[in-house]
């Protein structure tokens, strides 16, 4: 699996990472020598049983737990079973009680976890968020810039609708989002609307919400198709939504006529890319996201770096990263999956 990740990295060719990609954990960087070993680090995704987070966290996929293992820390993935603060909070509190040195959290809510996390930080526990930020943490590892994601999704749908001259793409488009209160989704949609001003003939007619539930996402997509018979394209910036929308469009009636793009995982989309339901979509590598978050957490917990903007460290195979504004680290630009490269990935 490690080879997949490094292959992926090579393909992305992210400027920040490329030069250091081969350095690996044996990096002679000074910071590496000062990292503490045996730290108790808990990785807390939004919920367990979610394949996106399993990819981000597991040793097998090259995620957060692999990085922790390589650094000699004691890593463990814990979370609740549903994507709610009420389910995640008991686990976080238990982790703190168990003597966590660092927590790597994808927040189910920007505020609800704060009393607990603030108390933990006061006690000296390092709190790093990944995937989904909270208003209380030392550092946020951001998968991609919201603006970059918003832009690329609009660019992709324009290209799908009018491959020859994307800027002249014309017609109605709609968005199948996750939940209406999902801050990530709403930020991306805001940037999509901004980018759409560059495409005067594309008209966003509706944003619908499938709650990241397969059956609901299928229904809202069907509702769109029924109420907008001239719909030209759908953008779904969520992995559950794009797979559900693809399953609806995967019939002779719609295949190739209503275009689809968004954020998806290669495994879920392979069938639909192969049969022409859609031709490209984007995502970051979730395993790299977890891997980077793990390095950031260990660097902070070892006091090798602080969370001040401008601090930098080497995140193993991913290379050197710098803390940016608002104590945020950016993983890199999103990667576009196409028919040509999709079979090289397995997550």
């Amino acid at each position: 699996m490690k080879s997949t990740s490094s292959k992926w990295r090579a393909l992305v060719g992210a400027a920040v990472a490329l030069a250091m990609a081969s350095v690996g954990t044996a990096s002679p960087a000074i910071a590496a020598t000062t990292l503490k070993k045996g730290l108790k680090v808990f990785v807390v995704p939004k919920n367990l049983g979610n394949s996106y987070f399993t990819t981000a966290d597991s040793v097998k996929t090259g995620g957060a737990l692999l990085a922790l293992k390589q650094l000699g820390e004691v890593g463990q993935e814990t979370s609740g079973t549903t994507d709610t603060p009420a389910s995640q909070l008991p686990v976080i509190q238990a982790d703190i009680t168990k003597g966590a040195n660092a927590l790597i959290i994808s927040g189910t809510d920007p505020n609800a976890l704060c009393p607990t996390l603030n108390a933990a930080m006061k006690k000296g526990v390092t709190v790093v968020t990944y995937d989904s930020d909270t208003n209380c943490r030392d550092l946020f590892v951001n998968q991609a810039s919201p603006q970059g994601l918003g832009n690329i999704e609009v660019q992709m749908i324009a290209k799908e609708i009018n491959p020859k001259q994307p800027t002249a793409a014309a017609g109605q488009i709609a968005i199948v989002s996750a939940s209406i209160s999902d801050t990530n989704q709403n930020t991306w949609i805001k940037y999509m609307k901004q980018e759409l001003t560059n495409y005067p003939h594309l008209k966003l007619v509706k944003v619908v919400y499938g709650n990241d539930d397969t059956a609901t996402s299928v229904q809202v997509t069907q509702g769109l198709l029924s109420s907008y018979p001239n719909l030209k394209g759908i953008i779904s910036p969520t992995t559950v939504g794009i797979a559900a929308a693809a399953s609806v469009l995967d019939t002779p009636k719609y295949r190739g006529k209503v275009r689809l793009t968004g954020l998806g995982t290669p495994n879920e989309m392979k069938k639909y890319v192969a049969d022409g339901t859609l031709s490209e979509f984007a995502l970051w590598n979730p395993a790299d996201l977890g891997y980077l978050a793990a390095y950031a957490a260990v660097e902070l917990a070892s006091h090798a770096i602080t969370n001040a903007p401008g601090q930098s460290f080497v995140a193993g195979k991913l290379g050197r990263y710098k803390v940016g504004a608002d104590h945020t680290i950016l993983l890199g630009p999103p990667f576009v999956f196409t028919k040509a490269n999709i079979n090289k990935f397995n997550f």
Partner: protein
Amino acid sequence: MQPEAALPAVGATPRPPATLTQSPREPRPTSLSGKFRWALHWESALVVALVLTVALGAATSAEFLTVSNIFSNVCLLYGELAIMALPTTLIILSGEIDLSIASTLALSSSLVGYLSSNHWPMPLVIIVALAAGIACGLLNGLLVTRLNLPSLAVTIGTMTLYEGISEIILGPAIITSFPAAYTAIGVKAFPATGGLLSYSAVLFIVLAVVFGVVLHATPFGRSVVAIGWNKQAAQFAGIRVKRVKTALYMLSGLMGALAGILYTFRLSTAEADNGTTLILPVIAVVLLGGVSIFGGKGTILGVVLAVLVYCSLQSALLLTNFNSNALEIVTGALLLLSVLIPNAGEIAARARRFAGGHGTSAPSAKGGRPPASAQ
């Protein structure tokens, strides 16, 4: 993700009449002789379970019995669930059920968020939320008692309805700023308890005492149990069944709203579906406490013990490396055991007969109004 929805069932109906073989007052007879019966009292079994759970927790983690663990991992997390278990106990005792109490929590939380974000003074917000809870309960009570609808079906409907109203009130908004004085109620320890007990835990203790006294030592409480045993007999005895039941539903709405306020302050977040996943655990805890789903049998003490067993088991398992995916198996297994163990002897006998090919009579889950038959 949507909350785990739920829908237990119980009848809008009376106790079964006494049968030839069994007194209705002993729905769970034991086959052991009387002098050992005390040992089988469900409460005693729960005390043993509690001791075992605490021993398990203490054995797995030195942190388990610390003040900070008890405060933050037991008291704080399960306060709302515990409070909702109290009125649910009374309702199940009366032979009904209220599946909408967790949705009332959500509705109350939404109201608190919406009104306080519109700069209403907090005391007024709290009063409105509690009143809304009572109104929700009143609607349930009227539908059940005046229209004679089965409470299982009614509260499946209002469970969805109240959560729906909650979504209409708050929409996509998530309200997160509340006065610090109030969020402190949600996260700080109650004064003079040595940092051990949360406000919700103190409230639960007080309420449990009040509910216990009301249930076991007042005419009202006795009438609740009487209705659960045998509604007709209760009626003949002059108990105003409809009034008592409506009052119970209003109480349930009130407690749901109170739990909603505490929940909002604890997480300092008001969201449309707050707490709706709590409904199954609430029912599970009450049944684990030895309350008969048919009504008429059960004690507040049993439910309080069940709350303690449930919370300390969850907390202990979280401190181990137990797969949290499997925590729900524990809830399910506890629930099954709570109904199987008291009948173990008879079940074994019946299983032999059943396997031997003889038909046996079987139970029903729900009380029943005599329905129009298609036969």
